[in-house]
Structure formats: C-alpha cells, structure tokens
C-alpha cells in the first residue's frame, strides 16, 4: 500500500517534470485588468464587480483584479483596447453578444472577437416571451396566429434591431410565416413600461428583468427560450416544446484575452475560471440572476463563436441590418 502510493507519487513527479517545459507555469505579475465595455452601473459592469468580489472573498487570484470601463461605440472601444494589449496577458475582458454584432454591422468596428483570444464562455442567458396578463393570447401559437391574421399590426417592444429580442423575432416569424412590428426602446425600463401600459403586445426579456412582473400577475409567460425549462418557470414550455424548433442563437457572455495570448496564459485563466465556477458565490450569482452556467474552454469557445457569427450574419441580414463583414 505504502509502496504503491510512493510509486504513484514518483510517477506523478516524473510526468510533471516531463511536461513542465511544454506547460511553463504562467502567473499574473501585476494587478489584473478586467475590461468591460459598459460604463459603471451597466449590466456588465455590475457583473464584473460581482466577479471581482467573489475572487477576493475566495482568494482565487494571487494579484488584485481591477474592473476597467472602456466605454464607447457599443463594444468597439473595449475591443480596440484589447487589441492594443497584444502581448500583455494581465488584461482580460468580459465579452457579450455585441462583441460579435458590432464588427458585423459597423464598418468602423474593426476588431472581431475571434481575432482576440476567447478564453472561456461563462454564461448563457435564458429568455422569457411575455405578454400582458390580460392579453387574449394563451400560447405563443395564439399570438403567432393573430399576427398572421393581421400582419404588421401587433407590436413587440425591444432593444436595438441587432439585439437578441429582434433576432428571436426574426427566427420565429421566419418559421411561422408571420409578421409583426418591432419597436426599439433604448432602456429596459421603457420596454417594460410600454408593454405594461398596453402600448405594445409582446416582449422577449431576461427572466431577471420581468420575473417580478410575472410573479405579481402583471405579465404572463407564453414560452421560454433555452435548452431546458428554468426552475422558476417549470410549467412554461420551451420554444421547442411550443412547436418552434430552430437553431437558437443564445445570448452568451464570457472572457476574452488580447490577440495571440500564449497557451500557458490561456491555460492559467481556464483553470482560474474553473475554480471560480465551483465557488458558492458564483452559484449564487447565477441563481440570483436566473442565468445558466456554461463550462467551455478556449478551443470550444472559439469554435462556438465561429458558427455563432455565421448564424448571426444571416439573421441580421433578415432583420434588416446592413452586414459589412
């Protein structure tokens, strides 16, 4: 028994010694800069600050992690900043779906997400399709049927035309052969006010954004977007179960490094976020905000983002946006 563990120990030593040159340990040498593209108080900024708090509480990082807001042009200022940090592995950024859509639709946004170094995908965001509680539609099929009967009359409140709400609308309309209007509002509050006031008919939202309205009986959920049903909305069918079966384009967030980040640094961050995923703080964060955790390393994330971009390109064109790349 003793001998065996000794043997195993020696073997492990030998193995690690053999691999040491290939996986030279990399460690951050100065405070980490965690870049977000939103200003202080934006959704991503709040998330990044919660991340740093978890990292500090669990003592996950040997150095301090500082949030740095690189605001401007959606994600473009932050992406350009990351591109300028080539060779500096002490800088990482939180990416979201706009890091993919901005370069697709803006001539001036030249730094594509996949030209940087995607490190890991952390989150997929589910969505709810909601109507006012007193609305005549009981299922998504009801709504789609009504939209077919009076094309262009029903209204959806949402964000920019490149946002996920509009992308999902395009996908549903395409499959069902229906047509309704998309009215953009810049702020989440205005969108909810529009549907609560009866000025629009339907809305696709984050569960954290409208969950309370649903609980209070002001809004009702027709369907949910995501691979499986959320715990809080066990009785609500997913899009697929409701009969709308298409390749979804999920809203996702993750971590990206500067272009050409060396593999040992990528490995360090992969392990780092693996540890983060196991913390109670992270699990609470996901639960509080009704988000789904994703466990993907750099290679898988890259592959995901390539197909993701291809799908988006088609959908954005359908949505009426000018695709430049």
């Amino acid at each position: 028994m003793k001998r065996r563990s000794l043997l195993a120990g020696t073997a492990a030593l030998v193995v690690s010694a053999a691999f040491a040159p290939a996986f030279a340990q990399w460690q951050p040498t100065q405070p980490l800069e965690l870049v977000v593209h939103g200003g202080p108080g934006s959704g991503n900024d709040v998330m990044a600050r919660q991340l740093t708090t978890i990292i500090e509480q669990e003592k996950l990082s040997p150095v301090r992690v500082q949030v740095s807001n690189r605001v401007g042009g959606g994600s473009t200022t932050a992406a350009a900043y990351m591109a300028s940090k080539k060779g500096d592995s002490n800088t990482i950024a939180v990416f979201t779906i706009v890091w993919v859509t901005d370069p697709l639709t803006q001539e001036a946004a030249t730094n594509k997400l996949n030209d940087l170094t995607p490190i890991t995908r952390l989150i997929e965001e589910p969505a709810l399709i909601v109507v006012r509680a007193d609305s005549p539609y009981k299922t998504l099929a009801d709504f789609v049927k009504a939209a077919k009967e009076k094309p262009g009359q029903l209204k959806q409140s949402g964000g920019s035309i490149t946002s996920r709400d509009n992308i999902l609308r395009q996908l549903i309309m395409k499959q069902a052969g229906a047509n309704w209007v998309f009215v953009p509002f810049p702020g989440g509050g205005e969108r909810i006010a529009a549907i609560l006031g009866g000025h629009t008919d339907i809305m696709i939202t984050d569960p954290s954004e409208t969950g309370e309205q649903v609980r209070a009986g002001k809004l009702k959920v027709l369907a949910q977007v995501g691979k499986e049903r959320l715990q809080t909305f066990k009785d609500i069918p997913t899009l697929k179960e409701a009969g709308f079966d298409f390749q979804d384009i999920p809203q996702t967030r993750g971590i990206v490094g500067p272009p050409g980040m060396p593999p040992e640094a990528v490995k360090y961050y992969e392990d780092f976020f693996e540890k983060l995923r196991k913390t109670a703080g992270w699990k609470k964060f996901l639960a509080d905000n009704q988000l789904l955790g994703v466990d993907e390393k750099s290679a898988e994330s890259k592959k995901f983002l390539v197909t993701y971009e291809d799908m988006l390109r088609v959908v954005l064109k359908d949505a009426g946006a000018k695709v430049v790349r």
Partner: protein
Amino acid sequence: MDIASGMLHGFYVALQPTNLLWCFFGCFLGTVVGILPGLGPAATISLLLPLTFKMDAAGGIIMMAGIYYGAKYGGSTTSILLNIPGESSSVVTCIDGYQMARKGRAGAALGIAAIASFIAGTVGVVLLTLMAPPIAAFALSFSSPEYFSLMVLGLALVVLLSGTSLVKGLLALLVGLWLTAIGVDIFSAQARFIFGQQTLLGGIDFTIVAIGVFALGEVLSSIDGGEESKMLPVPRGLRNLLPTWQDMKDCRFAFLNGSVVGFIIGVLPGAGGTIASFISYGLEKAVSKHPEKFGTGVVEGVAAPEGANNADTGGALIPLLTLGIPGGSSTAILLSALIIWGVHPGPLMMTESPDVFWGLVASMYIGNIMLLILNLPMVPAFAQILRMPVYVLFPFIFGISIVGVYGTTGRMFDLGLLAGFGFLGYMMGKLKFPTAPLILGFVLGDSMERALRQSMMMYGGDFTALFHRPITATMLVLAGIVLILPLITYFNRVRVQAVAEGGEA
C-alpha cells in the same frame, strides 16, 4: 399596510442609529460626488456596490439612495461658481447661476439652490408617500406619442430661451439636434456622422458638450474681453452671502413649479432630471413678469431647475419601487443592488419588504433635512473660491473641466472634442448666438427622435393618429401656441408702430 402605519414603521426603521448613520454617509458622499464634475451618482453607486454586499437591504438602499439624491444638491455648486455643470441635471442652473456669481451674488445663488432643492425634494417625497400606486398607473399611460409631444413642448420653449434673435436660437438648436444624432442609431443599426471614427460610434457624451460650450467657452470669452486682471466681486460678511427675503419671495412660484414639474417628469421612465430642469426653467420664464431678465442672473432661474431636479428623485423612485421599472441609469443600479441584497423590486415589494420600502421613504425626509444642514453652511465657504484672482481661477476651471471629462470617459479623443466645443462656445458668444438652445437640442433631440419614430411604427406611419390621444394633442397645441405667441406680439408691435406713425402724419 396603510400609509400612516407604513410611515410609522418606516420612521422606526430609518431612525435606527445605524440607518441614520448610513443615511448621513450617503447624503454626504452624494454631495461630494455632485460637486465633482464627471463622477456621477450612477458611477459612485456602482463603485461602492461590492462593499455593500454584506449590508442589510434597508441600510443599503438608504445609503445608496442618499448618494442619488445628495448628488443633485451638490450638482449646482460648480454650475454657479465656475459655469461647469457638476451633473447633467444642473446644466440649466449655469445660465442664471453663473451670472449671479459674476454679479457678486454667488452666495445667494448657492443658498437658493439648496433651499429650492430642499423644498422640492421634500414635496417629491411627500407625493411619493401619498400617491405612489395611482401615479405609477398614470406613468404607464404615457407612451411614445406623449413623450414626443412633451419634447416638442420642451423645444418650443427654446423660443423663450433664445433671447433676442429667434433665428439664431433656432440655428443653435439645429446644431444641438445634429450633434445628438451622431453615433449608432438603434432603429437601423447604422452609424450616423461618425466620419470613420470608432470612438464616435457611441455618440458624444453630454458632459463634453456642456462643459465645453459653457465653461470653456465662457472662460475664453472672458479672457478675450480683457478680464485677466479683474476679480469677481464677493461681498464680505455672512449675511450678504445668503439669500435675502426678497429672493425667497421672488422664488415662491419657482419652488412650486420646480416641485410639480420635476415630480411629474420624474415619474415618466425615460425622461429624467435633466429634461425636468429644462422644462421648469422654460415654464418659469414663460410665466415671469420680466422674462427678458432671464439669463442675466435672476434668482428664479436657479430655484426652478434646482427644485425640479430634486423633485425628480421622488418621482423616479415610484416606477422603481412600485413596478420594478428603472427610469434611468442611477435607478437601474439601485435595482440591481436590491436584487443582490435579496429584495425583489417589483409590484410585490411594498407588501413583501415593507422595511425596505417604507424605511427608504422615511429616510428621504430625514436625508433632505440633513442635506440642507450640510449644504447651507458650506455656501459662504464655497463662495470664497471666487476670491481667487482670475489668473488662478481660469486655469483652475480648465483643470477641473479636463479632469471631469477624462474622468467620465477615460479617452484622450474626448479631450480633443472638449477643446473643439470650448472653441464653439467661444465663437457662439462672439457672434451673439445663445448656447442654451444648443444644449437643449442635444438633450432632447435623441429622445424626441426616438419617440417620434416609435410612434410612427406603432401607428403605421399615420401622423394624425397622434391627435387622437388627448394628452399628446394638448401638449402639441400648447407647443403651437408657445411658437406663435412671439409672432403675434411682433406683428402687434409693427401694427401699433404703423398706427402711431400714421397718426403723426
């Protein structure tokens, strides 16, 4: 829980020693943040958020809200003293506030700003206490057509803001409307007027335009006018530094106007304190017996907007606390903070978390008193800043402006823009163009365009549909009257003149 027992419970929560301390801390921090241009309440709350994770929800929200409304008290300080708007909601305060300071009445302006803030802030909280749920229902009845007509009414007030020349006022307004169109349009995802500049994709930050055109433009004009050697007059003696009874009497209507306009506009998600301050200033000028004196340093011109942006707080908290709808960036962070503390902001919050709801409302009565006590004694101290000789004061204004802008965005490019807008402000002054319409166009233009396009999408492009909505129709007609009035008086004057000349002949 009815209102009376709710308030009783609320004061029980808010008067707990720790919560009193949090309230004071929040108000104090808010005042400081308000004074510093560039660092706004939204950014401050977000930076402090990680430190509050372990706090209980009532204490946390009492402190965070203190920062939010405290900043509105502090925002007027630099507007009045240095012509640098500390917050976007204090831009209008510059117009008459800074002129008062130049006449040696800085103390009176600062004092009246604090008093107006206190009165209107308290009225806002009273209205929040008494009528939150019905007012929330009213807010929801507002939709894009109503917003559009509200903005049109606001712009019509430009005519009143524009001073001597209507044409110059409208030109300045158009430049403001154009500047606000820069950036990516959310309806088409197309970039407009960015000239290939990545940094312009997100549009130009409001602080850059306001600080450039107002503060830097003013300093450049003063230097050009040979003011280097002069010092601004600052009277000696505490009594001469505070508002007089006459000032208070002159502001009677402004206090009321600021309270009501600020509160109503605050309730609407997507309008906000900046718009409230502009509209109440315009209204004050419209009903004034001496509208021509506005812009030369009248005390009502400070009281109305400063009141409005404080009453706005009470209004803005209504959709947040009763519906879970944040109207602006500050309330959006308060919402995420509540979620972190385990409270569910929404229609059920009043019944499920009465501690938080009533505790916060009660703390705001206390907080407003604290802020008045905090701010009034600082007035004489702040007024001393103007004792600095001009050759120190002007570089000081430049320094604060640059730090303020860089602190907001962190981009060198924006400092270039700041210089450009400073020059624009200087040229406008030289050519006798009013600057206020430019700023108003910049503030309202974006929301107005969006509201119009949303309305057109909702009604399939039928403009007449707007007139089927009573509130929209009323406001559009009012805007029409405001636009036509100066023309009528003009023609009247011409006719009277013609008659008089005819009689002589």
